[in-house]
């Protein structure tokens, strides 16, 4: 049975009201449990089926249809003011086709039968146009069709929290931060996302996933005599509900965070040179992202990103897989979309491939690239892995899915090494906390990262604060210089909402977990030049 648009909108409002009532009492289980996953709405499913049929009629040997509904809320504050409250919603359909072995994709926000049929035909037309400049037909790695629903495990949907409560939390944090002498400016914010995505394919997949992500932020600026310094706390965005925002206790911690900005005003400018570098997880995640996450993307290694983000030093695959020494024996890197609370946590990717957990680097040796169904066949003869690692995602109904990074994490040391032990074992070092500026070359060799707070270590003790610090290194040398790694208790999950890749650029959310680690004799540069 088909439902018209108006009925669908009414129905979905009623469902929301019903689920709210359930959460407010009646059907609440005794122990707290995550919110159950909603299914596909029938209207969307019907449109998707229409589009699949139209794609087949237009000659597609394969087609998939994604219907996405993205609800975003953003709140920004500065000092005692709210700078912006925005609530946005985007709804639409994207159809991807293979006709005569070539890809096509078209999308529209117009959710009517006529529009989706037209879009399916447009995708087939794009496939045919691409065929004129095509060398070999697209082949997809086998993947069994899947059906079902899934939702990010959350205790409290952030969209159910009253806006007043959200604003009050941020303004209270700002107020507390401004209690710190010399701290004159403070900004804080919340980014909230709820994404409902339905995927149907001509192979029989029919899945609906609901993603919830929260991203708080906080930044304080202290002003001294002709000088200013800022400090941003690392409030890692997560695939979690409102409970995570409360856990961060922004009002309770704001004064402590803001005092770091004030303290930076009197910090000593770093003497450039070689130091043992101790990275906290709040800084190292971005170095993992840029120098391990991106170069192990197979499309980059094969030249597909050459015109934009670049290629990869991990190429050609046959010379690198199973051979390249990325780091020491205790260095293990895992790709993992099954990790709870992480940003790329899911049940299936945008091709319906089940979430995968796989070692990218094992005992220091490079082992696997990130792949999609199309890419799996490119390297199966070398790796023996015939299936996709489930890395196909699109950031919107309006963009085509392509290879995106899963959570890429550095696994902790089997020994329970602590941060204190790492500091105590260091004669002359610098500790870096939180992420600052970042830049890396287009093959992912030469990188330079800064942080938000820096401390000098002498003879096993923290002796004072530094400023103007950045570390610069070459990827293979850097990771092989790691000589101490924290244990499981020191592991933390960080991440970002804003990983850009592809043309047109798509933004992806990804987490990176790691413990703290020490790197021997890393080049520290001074960024505070004044002329």
């Amino acid at each position, binding site marked *: 049975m088909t439902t018209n648009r*108006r009925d669908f909108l009414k129905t979905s409002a009623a469902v929301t009201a019903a689920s709210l009532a359930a959460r407010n009492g009646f059907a609440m289980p005794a122990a707290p449990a995550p919110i159950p996953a909603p299914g596909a709405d029938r209207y969307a499913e019907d449109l998707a089926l229409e589009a699949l049929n139209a794609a087949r009629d237009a000659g597609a040997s394969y087609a998939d249809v994604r219907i996405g509904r993205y609800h975003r809320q953003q709140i920004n504050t500065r000092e005692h*003011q*709210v700078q*912006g*409250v925005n*609530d*946005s*919603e*985007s*709804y639409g359909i994207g159809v991807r086709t293979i006709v005569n072995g070539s*890809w*096509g*994709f*078209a*999308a*529209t*926000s*117009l*959710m009517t039968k006529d*529009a989706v049929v037209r879009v399916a035909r*447009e995708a087939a*037309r*794009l496939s045919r*146009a*691409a065929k*004129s*400049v*095509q*060398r*070999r037909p697209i082949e997809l790695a086998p993947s069994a069709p899947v059906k079902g629903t899934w939702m990010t495990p959350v205790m409290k949907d952030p969209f159910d929290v009253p*806006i007043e409560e959200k604003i009050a939390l941020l*303004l209270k944090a700002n107020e507390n931060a401004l209690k710190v002498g010399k701290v004159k*400016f403070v900004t804080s914010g919340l980014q909230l996302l709820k994404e409902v995505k339905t995927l149907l394919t001509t192979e029989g997949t029919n899945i609906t996933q609901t993603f919830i992500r929260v991203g708080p932020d906080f930044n304080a*600026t202290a002003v001294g005599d*002709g000088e*200013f310094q800022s400090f941003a706390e690392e409030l890692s965005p997560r695939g979690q509900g409102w409970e995570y925002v409360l856990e961060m206790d922004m009002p309770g911690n704001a004064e402590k965070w803001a005092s770091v900005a004030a303290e930076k005003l009197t910090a000593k400018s770093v003497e450039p040179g070689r130091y043992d570098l101790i990275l906290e997880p709040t800084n190292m995640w971005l170095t993992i992202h840029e120098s391990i996450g991106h170069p192990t993307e197979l499309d980059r290694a*094969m*030249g597909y*990103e*050459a*015109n*934009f983000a670049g290629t990869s030093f991990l*190429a050609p695959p046959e010379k690198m897989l199973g051979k390249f020494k990325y780091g020491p024996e205790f260095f293990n890197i895992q790709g993992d979309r099954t990790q709870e609370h992480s940003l790329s946590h899911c049940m299936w990717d945008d091709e319906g491939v089940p979430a995968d957990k796989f070692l990218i680097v094992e005992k220091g040796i490079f082992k696997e690239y990130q792949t999609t169904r199309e890419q799996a066949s490119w390297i199966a003869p070398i790796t023996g892995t015939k299936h996709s690692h489930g890395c196909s995602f699109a950031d919107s109904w309006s963009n085509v899915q*392509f290879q995106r990074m899963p959570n890429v994490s550095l696994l902790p040391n089997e020994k329970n090494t602590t941060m204190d032990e790492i500091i105590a074992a260091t004669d002359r070092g610098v500790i870096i906390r939180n992420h600052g*500026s970042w*830049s*890396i*070359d*287009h*093959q992912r060799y*030469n990188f*330079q990262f800064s942080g938000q707070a820096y401390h000098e270590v002498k003879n096993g003790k923290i002796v004072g604060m530094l400023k*103007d610090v950045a570390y*610069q290194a*070459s990827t293979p040398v850097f990771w092989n210089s790691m000589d101490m790694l924290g244990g499981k208790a020191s592991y933390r999950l960080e991440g970002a909402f804003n990983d850009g890749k592809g*043309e*047109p650029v798509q933004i992806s959310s990804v987490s990176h977990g790691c413990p703290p680690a020490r790197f021997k004799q890393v080049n520290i540069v001074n*960024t*505070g*030049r004044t002329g």
Partner: protein
Amino acid sequence: MREPRSLFNPAPADEPFLSSADAKALITKVLSYATADEVRVLVNSGWAGNTRFARGEITTSGGITDTTVTVIATVGKRRASTTTNILENDALKRSVELAERLAKLSPENPELMPELGPQKYIPVEGFVQRTADLSPEPRAAAVKKVFDSINEQGRSLGELNVAGFLSVNAGAFAVGNNKGLFAYHRSTAVDLGTTARTPDATGSGWAESGSRDWANIDPAALGRRAAQKAISSHAPTAIEPGLYSVVLEPAAVGQLVPALIGSMDARSADEGRSPFSKKGGGTKLGEKIVDERVTMYSDPADPDLLSQPFDGEGLPAGRKVWIENGVLKTLNYSRFWAQKQGMQAVGGGGFGGGLKMNGGTKSTADLIAGCERGLLVTHFFYVNFLDPRTVMMTGLTRDGLWLIEKGKVTRPVRNFRWMESPLFMLNKIEEMGKPEHVGVGLVLPALRVKDFNMASLSDAI
């Protein structure tokens, strides 16, 4: 003339965005649902087409239509906004109600400025029909021309690896409010970029061109340029990091100079947290901050820029001279800050109205000829800020870097990571080239600059 059409069954494939009349009708309808003191509605409507290519073939391509409606509701000094792309009456009503509800729940913002009444705008025509008509088939044909011209050039080295992207969009942006303001602007843009790499992966070249008019893009010429750069940058050798005179092609200048405009927020300068703050208070307005040969401005009506003549508040975006003969002439004032400081706010923020920097009459080849020892830079990659106090930035050279000796390009060299500030750089100019189109709304000259800080070597090709 076309038949009028319903808003809810629009998008014939040949006209996939709203006309001025349709946008006005949509805004009027949304405003009719509103009860708040002040309501502003933004409409973004457009079509985008793209064709991406790599390894000798088209890899992905797409065609997208979308229309979004943003409602900004103000109740007293409280304001909030909602955005939706569901254009049915019920959904639009919900969006208005939500914006009004969120506004009422938001705390008062003492800095809130009232909505503007009707404004006058300079007419700017940034729409070219042949760009809007660039369908999948001619895009594929253009990609084929890129491949063919690169292969023609690169024959001696074997087949070059080619990647690139052709993107086109045609759309309209409209603003209206319940105080009688209405503004509408339609535009097109097309951009074609390509990277060619030598088969042994030791040489890489790049070329890109953007315009409002597809007729200004020459796919074969772009392919030739990328291929020539790949071939002549092939097998580079490393030289020592250090301070070098550099000839920056206009594309490289376009990756540094706009960052300076981005740092020109007036409030930050007044509040002592900007490179344009004066020690002890005040700003550097009226002071010489860079070489006296430098003048740069934004102007939506400039025939080379043709940008939207208003911003999201409906404030007219006029000519803004940022730097004139090296002197800082204006900072970017929001309406609130302008009122507080007794200054004039000009619409469009930092980049509204595009950016044009003056230059000389010389070609890039002339700048090279005048260089005793230095480097020729194609463009940069991964440029990011290091220190907001000085606009200090870092990034890498990419897709062709050569040593210049005694006025001649002598050999390709390995890429560098650099650390430099556009503010310092514009104080170290030796010579300025002729301004060129770097992209849509961006016109800049090549520059020869001394003592550019190439800080460390990069192995990337």
